[in-house]
């Protein structure tokens, strides 16, 4: 019997994202950032170049991968090409998240990929909502073109959970063109545009939150207006200050924002234990009335959002962030579980 593969935690800050544009040919019903054909806000090339330089310089090259997302990054090929060139000049590996609508044929897709400086990977989104705008044939073209160009292609499928038959059907289609290890599955967030279709989402609910650690908060993402979030997930829909809103690059340097993230105890508690730990602490602190009665089964992001969307909880988390005993526990838990010394090194005696 084959030994089970050890699960590895996602390394912190090895990947930084740039949300290049809110524009997208599709206006998917489940889009958290409400991207669509009528959205035209995008990152200026000047800002993108400045931030890429800062990303590449951070700790003498600590960040390895630049992830470009949107919206649809391929919707402005000139901007995309210039940004990938800038990243390549800085020797960052580039990954692009895309709906693949540009892959109208395999040949066309190959030509587009070859017109860009070398990229390391594509993360192609396809699911029941995307497929209303982008047929699966196009996704298949992109996968085959990427293979031909030596670019790793991952396919990202989200659905409502195990009972979502459309999700299972699409996964079967994807498995015909790419192996399972290149597929990433997720659960739709009832946030952003998806809040309008919440009643139709076929979730399975549980009275207890998922008990897994968060893997998303290891990769911060920069938005066109300079905001930096600890992850690109449902929390970006919260308008107020919260623990994963790390700063704004028009107010602070990237170095300061990322160094500050190293000592963000709530963020690292999510990475170490997941939101269920904070939910347990909230219940023990008498905040039971502020907690959801039920949680979407298997959705760590859903649990995180449902808790942090309560203003009283956010205020309590703000106080928790200052709690010396909690910070010390998190700093050593990072060392114990993740072999990460960043918090101990940056915060120093404060947490030792």
């Amino acid at each position, binding site marked *: 019997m084959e030994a089970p593969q050890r*699960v590895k935690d996602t390394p912190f800050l090895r990947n930084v994202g740039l949300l290049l544009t809110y524009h997208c040919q599709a206006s998917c019903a489940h889009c958290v950032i409400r991207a669509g054909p009528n959205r035209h806000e995008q990152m200026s090339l000047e800002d993108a170049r400045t931030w890429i330089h800062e990303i590449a310089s951070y700790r003498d090259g600590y960040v390895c991968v630049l*992830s470009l997302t949107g919206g649809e990054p391929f919707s402005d090929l000139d901007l995309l090409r210039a940004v990938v060139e800038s990243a*390549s000049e800085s020797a960052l*590996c580039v990954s692009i998240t895309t709906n693949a609508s540009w892959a109208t044929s395999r040949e066309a897709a190959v030509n587009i990929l070859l017109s860009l400086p070398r990229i*390391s990977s594509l993360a192609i989104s396809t*699911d029941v909502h995307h497929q209303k705008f982008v047929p699966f044939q196009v996704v298949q073209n992109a996968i085959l073109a990427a293979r031909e160009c030596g670019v*790793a292609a*991952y396919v*990202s499928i989200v659905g409502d959970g195990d009972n979502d038959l459309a999700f299972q059907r699409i996964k079967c289609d994807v498995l015909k063109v790419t192996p399972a290890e290149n597929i990433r599955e997720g659960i739709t967030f009832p946030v952003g545009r998806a809040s309008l279709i919440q009643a139709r989402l076929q979730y399975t609910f549980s009275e207890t939150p998922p008990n897994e650690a968060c893997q998303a908060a290891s990769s911060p993402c920069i938005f066109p207006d300079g905001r930096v979030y600890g992850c690109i997930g449902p929390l970006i829909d919260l308008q107020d200050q919260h623990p994963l809103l790390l700063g704004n690059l028009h107010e602070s340097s990237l170095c300061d924002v990322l160094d500050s993230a190293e000592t963000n105890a709530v963020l690292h508690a999510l990475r170490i234990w997941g939101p269920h730990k904070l939910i347990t602490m909230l219940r023990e602190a008498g905040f039971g009335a502020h907690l959801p009665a039920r949680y979407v089964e298997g959705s760590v992001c859903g649990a995180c959002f449902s808790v942090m969307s309560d203003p009283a909880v956010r205020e309590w988390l703000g106080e928790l962030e200052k709690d010396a005993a909690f910070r010390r526990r998190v700093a050593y838990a990072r*060392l114990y579980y993740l072999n990460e010394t960043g918090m101990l090194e940056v915060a120093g005696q404060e947490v030792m």
Partner: protein
Amino acid sequence: MATDAVPKGVKKFTVPAEFVRAFQGEVRFVPRDPHNNGYMNFDYNMLIGALRNADPAARERLAAALGSLETQWNLVLVSKSETIVSGD
């Protein structure tokens, strides 16, 4: 590697015994399949994949960065028992 034989310039961190006991009593769950938020996919396997697909300049830069442990945080050379030594 003995944790008391720490090379010059390497920082040594020790998890206090109180935390070792506490953490040993915990069960920590890490998803086998990382959560996919649909907007940015990244995990350990993708990092390795990205580096394998990188151009020679990018690979050289990473090799230089990993080789220069003095300025690297989060790289742990030794992880045994209660003592962890960070690369630098």
